[in-house]
């Protein structure tokens, strides 16, 4: 039942707010939507072949992409590349997150630390992390270390910044209340500051994961023999478009899964925010 906004009252009540859909219908809509997208894609690629619009190699249908992915999965190479990418992301993100959270907590809590770190961060922040990739390569060569190091560098900033913010935005009233109940020093830190800052820290981690997947590709374009990024770029040489698209989709799925994991963690650890 299409809602075309032909009158002012409709525009006001439905068109802008949108209809509130119940859970089940929303899910059905999602799945239906993706199916529709795939259908459209198939139609388009089919049309390209039938109507001879351009060389169909440039727009393979979804079945070709899927076929390529499955083929590589069955024969084995997909897993090798997937593992390579995952390993780099995991190590890089892990290091970046550890550094970001630890330094962020320190900088958020202690003005002395903040005054030292903040100017450096403020200087480096406007510079797109990608610009530093060649630097890492020059320093450490085209190996695993440069890739992992680069991811650490890239993920550090958002995690650091959101952690600092998480600590600093804590309502001073909460701290005073805790102190008047006897909390001091380390106790205050672990029992009040940490839990209060946790939601922001987790948001920062989520951003970090997304960013890690965002930048891993480019570092795998340059000087890699394995990895999903490598697969994508490698496909360029022989116009293996299904491979390029397939690897991209797999990467997307990985990122989605990573994001989902952090969200799960979020829901667990900050259950007090949404007890429902």
């Amino acid at each position, binding site marked *: 039942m299409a809602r075309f906004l032909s009158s002012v*009252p409709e525009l*006001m009540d439905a068109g802008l707010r949108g209809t509130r859909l119940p859970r089940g219908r929303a899910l059905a809509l999602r799945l239906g939507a993706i199916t529709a997208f795939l259908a459209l894609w198939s139609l388009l690629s089919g049309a390209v072949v039938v109507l001879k619009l351009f060389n169909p190699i440039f727009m393979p249908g979804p079945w070709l992409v899927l076929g390529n992915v499955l083929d590589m999965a069955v024969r084995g190479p997909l897993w090798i590349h997937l593992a390579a990418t995952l390993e780099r992301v995991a190590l890089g993100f892990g290091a970046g997150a550890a550094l970001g959270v630890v330094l962020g907590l320190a900088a958020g809590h202690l003005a002395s630390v903040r005054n030292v770190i903040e100017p450096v961060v403020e200087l480096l922040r406007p510079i797109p992390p990608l610009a530093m990739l060649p630097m890492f390569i020059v320093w450490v060569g085209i190996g695993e270390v440069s890739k992992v190091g680069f991811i650490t560098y890239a993920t550090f900033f958002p995690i650091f910044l959101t952690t600092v913010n998480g600590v600093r935005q804590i309502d001073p009233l909460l701290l005073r209340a805790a102190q008047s109940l006897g909390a001091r020093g380390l106790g205050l830190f672990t029992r009040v500051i940490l839990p209060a800052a946790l939601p922001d820290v987790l948001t920062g981690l989520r951003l970090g994961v997304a960013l890690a997947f965002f930048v891993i590709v480019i570092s795998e374009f340059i000087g890699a023999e394995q990895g999903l990024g490598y697969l994508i770029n490698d496909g360029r040489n022989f116009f293996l478009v299904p491979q390029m698209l397939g690897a991209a989709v797999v990467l997307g799925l990985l990122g989605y899964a990573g994001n989902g994991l952090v969200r799960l963690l979020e829901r667990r650890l900050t259950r007090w925010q949404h007890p429902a």
Partner: protein
Amino acid sequence: MAGGPKIRIQHIAKSFGPAGRAIPALAEIDLDVDERELVCLLGPSGCGKSTLLNIVAGFLAPTSGTVLVDGRPVSGPAPERGVVFQEYALFPWLTVSGNVEFGPLLQSRPAAERRRTVDRYLDLVGLRAHAEKFPVQLSGGMKQRVAIARALANNPAVILMDEPFGALDAQTREVLQDELSRIQRVEHKTILFVTHSIREAVYLADRVVVMTSVPGRIKQVFPIKLPEVRDRFAPEFTQYESDITRVVREEVAKVRE
């Protein structure tokens, strides 16, 4: 003066939800509002008085029944029925005068005339000095006065007010009630006013319509025979208050069950 009431609410009923499992909000409502009358809809929370007002305004379609304003049926919002909302609904990107000017601007009134209109109504609500301020700079009471000026500036046939002073603190509330009373003595508009404050209703209304709890019905209508300028502490005033309170209490007790 044209014959017949200004607002005629005929057999209005409203239910929400899918057919078969619909929740009735309003049962048969019949009400006439005469020209220059200020009628208050009074009742406990959830009795449907705001729903009724929204139907008269044209924001909601009734399940059955019609509303006639000046003899013409209501089928949607229109400038003939000005509205003052509890949340002020001022356009934050426009100044005070920009807000008041909005209706005349939509009707393509010439600039000089708009200027005069804006000045007149800002004077009426006493905010001429703040004409170039933005809503974010105003207090709640001031915002509501701008909203009233905005509604009046468009020269509507009737004005609908949905608990307009509900978001204000007690002092400001009484000040604004005085303001509205004074404005009404100048402008003589036809006003349908929703409130859950008995005191407010007795102070402002020519007639107080007490509604029942869900599904809303008209329980009793109290004509208020008090002078134009009312004394909140006069014995007659308090008498009306207690009479109406008794009736409302019965309804409140029903909701609690």
